[in-house]
């Protein structure tokens, strides 16, 4: 939808409100963290003191928590404008210089990652360009390669560490001293980013080759290079907004990658600050990340503007001839991965996940198929029980997101700002903020993931509702005396509910992976609960002696990723990325 007139004003106002809200949230963090933080700081700084009311009051006074939320926020904002980012709560040194150095490391790492991603994009797109030049329709990207390139960064970096750093010993596994240290982390960040961008771009290129003007150019005798360049120029604007999101997403992925490879970047600094509840450090880091995200967003918007020009509206761009209308669904991949996952869960649920009944790091045998972890606990049982915890939480998160998404999506213009912020914010960053405020917990992780996961559902709701509103049977309702609320609740809601429920369920594995990522980083459930990310984090220290301690949770997570991506490909999950062509009005109408 292209905003016009008052709509544009509404959208702009909504964006400003969302951004201001974000700044206020960051500024309010010390006050929000309140009581929990006092205990943590007391334990961290003065481990000899008892948590008496007097001691806690002293901490409060020392941290400036007595001033009340507004005064704290104002003094923080004043400090920021004066170049003073605050004093660390833990070691009482200024926060600014450390964050600056960490930002430098992270930006360098992201630079390497972008190079890796660019190579992968090239590898994926060259066949698409070649197919188009040879006038072959070629196959759209399959589900399995898509799934393999979309493993979450924390899982990929763990796997690359095992393979490239430990088994093959081609690259140093830890540290940040020279370019050779950057290879594995850059791959861990670049493969998912480049994979996603490459698949989107190659699909856009194939679609562009199907447009009518290409045939006209061919008849007019355009050269191969000329044609390829024109197609590329046509395909790029469609994927640029996604590029912005992917680049911002790198900041979230960097947290996990920097932790695994022990890189002294911004992500690791934030993670340390969040688990120690060192709020000033976290505030400074979040500010740096928001600045980075704003810069990236502005650059991609500017690039898009330069490519398609100011006058061209989306509606005037040519449309591709629709390829075969038969929906080509690859059901084998999701079915096999779902079955394997169910088998693991079923077998694991029958066993005890807490008893240390086995030898430490026992190797897999027939009676102990996945081996045992460092405490001698049955890994199959832990992975199976972990599935229930992780997937169960994910189900609750998804249902909450569905409710929020529908409520927000029915008022799309006013929600544009929060929607864009939530859509761009990586769940890991949300997890950092929540963990810093409430301390790490399963509920905190769920809250963090829910806080950013409602956005695609809201966007889908908005698109479906817009489509429903255009139906003649909705348009006539005012004449029949049906009021605005009645139209919304009794007509539009039933029309959009079913496709949205399906979309929400398709997001389930993805949400489970986000929860696992937080668990892996220590921002979710704590020991000894069997949570997938936590099991992986526990196993990774023993990867050289007992690779199965990593293999068991990693394979469950890989199965979940494959399931997530292959489901998103077959259903409406990908719909949210394509505004204006969402859902299927005929199908929505046919449902009774």
């Amino acid at each position, binding site marked *: 939808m292209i905003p016009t007139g008052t709509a544009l004003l509404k959208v702009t106002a909504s964006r400003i409100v969302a951004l201001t809200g974000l700044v206020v949230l960051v500024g309010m963090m010390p006050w929000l963290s309140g009581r929990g933080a006092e205990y943590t700081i007391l334990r961290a700084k003065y481990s000899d003191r008892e948590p008496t009311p007097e001691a806690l009051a002293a901490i409060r006074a020392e941290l400036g928590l007595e001033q009340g939320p507004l005064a704290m926020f104002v003094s923080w904002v004043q400090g920021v404008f004066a170049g003073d980012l605050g004093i660390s709560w833990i070691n009482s040194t200024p926060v600014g210089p450390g964050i600056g150095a960490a930002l430098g490391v992270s930006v360098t790492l992201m630079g390497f990652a972008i190079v890796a991603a660019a190579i992968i994009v090239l590898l994926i797109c060259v066949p698409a360009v070649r197919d188009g030049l040879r006038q072959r329709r070629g196959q759209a990207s399959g589900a399995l390669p898509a799934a393999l390139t979309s493993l979450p960064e924390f899982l990929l970096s763990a796997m690359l560490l095992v393979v490239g750093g430990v088994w093959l010993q081609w690259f140093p596994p830890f540290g940040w001293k020279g370019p050779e240290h950057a290879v594995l982390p850059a791959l861990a960040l670049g493969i998912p980013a480049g994979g996603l961008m490459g698949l989107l771009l190659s699909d856009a290129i194939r679609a562009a080759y199907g447009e009518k003007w290409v045939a006209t150019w061919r008849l007019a005798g355009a050269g191969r290079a000329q044609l390829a360049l024109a197609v590329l120029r046509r395909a790029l604007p469609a994927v640029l907004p996604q590029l912005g999101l992917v680049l911002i997403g790198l900041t979230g992925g960097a947290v996990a990658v920097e932790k695994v490879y022990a890189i002294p970047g911004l992500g690791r600094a934030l993670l340390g600050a969040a688990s120690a509840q060192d709020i000033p450090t976290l505030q400074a880091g979040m500010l740096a990340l928001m600045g980075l995200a704003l810069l990236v967003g502005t650059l991609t918007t500017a690039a898009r503007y330069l490519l398609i020009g100011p006058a061209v509206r989306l509606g005037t761009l040519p449309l591709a001839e629709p390829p075969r209308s038969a929906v080509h669904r690859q059901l084998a991949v999701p079915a096999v991965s779902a079955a394997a996952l169910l088998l693991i869960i079923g077998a694991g649920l029958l066993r005890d996940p807490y008893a240390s009944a086995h030898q430490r790091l026992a190797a897999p045998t027939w009676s102990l198929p996945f081996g045992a972890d460092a405490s001698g606990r049955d890994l199959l049982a832990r992975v199976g029980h972990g599935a229930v915890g992780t997937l169960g939480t994910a189900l609750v998160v998804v249902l909450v997101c569905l409710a929020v998404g529908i409520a927000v999506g029915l008022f799309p213009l006013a929600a544009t700002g929060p929607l864009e912020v939530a859509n761009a914010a990586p769940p890991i960053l949300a997890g950092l903020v929540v963990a810093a405020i409430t301390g790490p917990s399963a509920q905190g992780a769920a809250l963090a993931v829910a806080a950013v996961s409602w956005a695609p559902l809201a966007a889908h709701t908005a698109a479906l509702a817009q489509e429903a509103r255009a139906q*003649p049977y909705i348009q006539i309702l*005012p*004449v029949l005396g049906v009021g605005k609320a009645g139209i919304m609740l009794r007509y539009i809601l039933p029309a959009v509910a079913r496709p949205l429920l399906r979309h929400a369920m398709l997001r389930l594995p993805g949400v489970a992976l986000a929860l696992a990522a937080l668990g892996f980083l220590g921002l979710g459930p704590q020991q000894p609960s069997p949570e997938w990310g936590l099991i992986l984090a526990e196993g990774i220290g023993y990867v050289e002696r007992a690779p199965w301690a990593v293999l068991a949770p990693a394979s469950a997570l890989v199965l979940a990723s494959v399931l997530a991506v292959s489901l998103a490909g077959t259903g409406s999950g990908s719909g949210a990325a394509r505004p204006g062509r969402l859902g299927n009005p005929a199908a929505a109408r046919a449902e009774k």
Partner: protein
Amino acid sequence: MTGTLAAEGISFAYPTRGFRNKQPAETLRHVSLRISPGTSTALVGSSGSGKSTLVRILLAMAKPSTGTVSLGARDVAPGPVRTLRWYRRAVQYIPQNPAGSLDPRMTVSQLLMEPLRQLRVEGNHRDLAAQALERVELPARAMHRRPGELSGGQNQRVAIARALAVKPTYLLADEPVSGLDLPLRDAVLELLDGLVHEGLGLLLVTHDLTTAARMCGTTAVLSGGSTVEQAPTGQLLESPASPAAVALVQASRGLQLPAPLQAVAL
């Protein structure tokens, strides 16, 4: 509620899109129209002449930039549902593509009862719905069907029955027969004709003068957003005064069948 349905000096301009396009195009300029119960008026004009916009304004679904719509002594303007119930009970509407205006999830009975309930019509709603269904000559068993289970012509009748269920004084019909084959077209027009004889005030929006000639005593010609001619239909057909009316009359003559064939077709 009886009295004349009147639009006086209506002008309308669609809001400008974007900032660059500063000149709003006026869709309607000082259009006036009066309808009384028991008469039928045709509103003709080529597509884009502003007919549908005028209907939206008459339905209080769009606000004119100048001019007023009134029923009897009361002025009408777009607003919340509860302030307009009396007007909606008196003035009902059959949209273009009436069959598409039926929610596919609802049964005919639910469709017919919805306006009765929403507009707080007095009396037994079930009986009123049944009467409306009978009036459009649909069998009572159609009550429990959904639009998907009925034919296009039957759905058209359901849409008309829904408009009639609240016993309106006026009916605005926007190209109600445009998508129908000839026999169905005749049946629907006959039904509307009968309603006018029973005292309904009908405004029939059409681009086709033949329909106007058959149905309506008065015809108003809309061209470029203004009423260029308003006259008894017969007089308009005999001696059209404005260029727009001349063009419409010529176009309808060109379409007319030779007399013998016409007899067969009707």
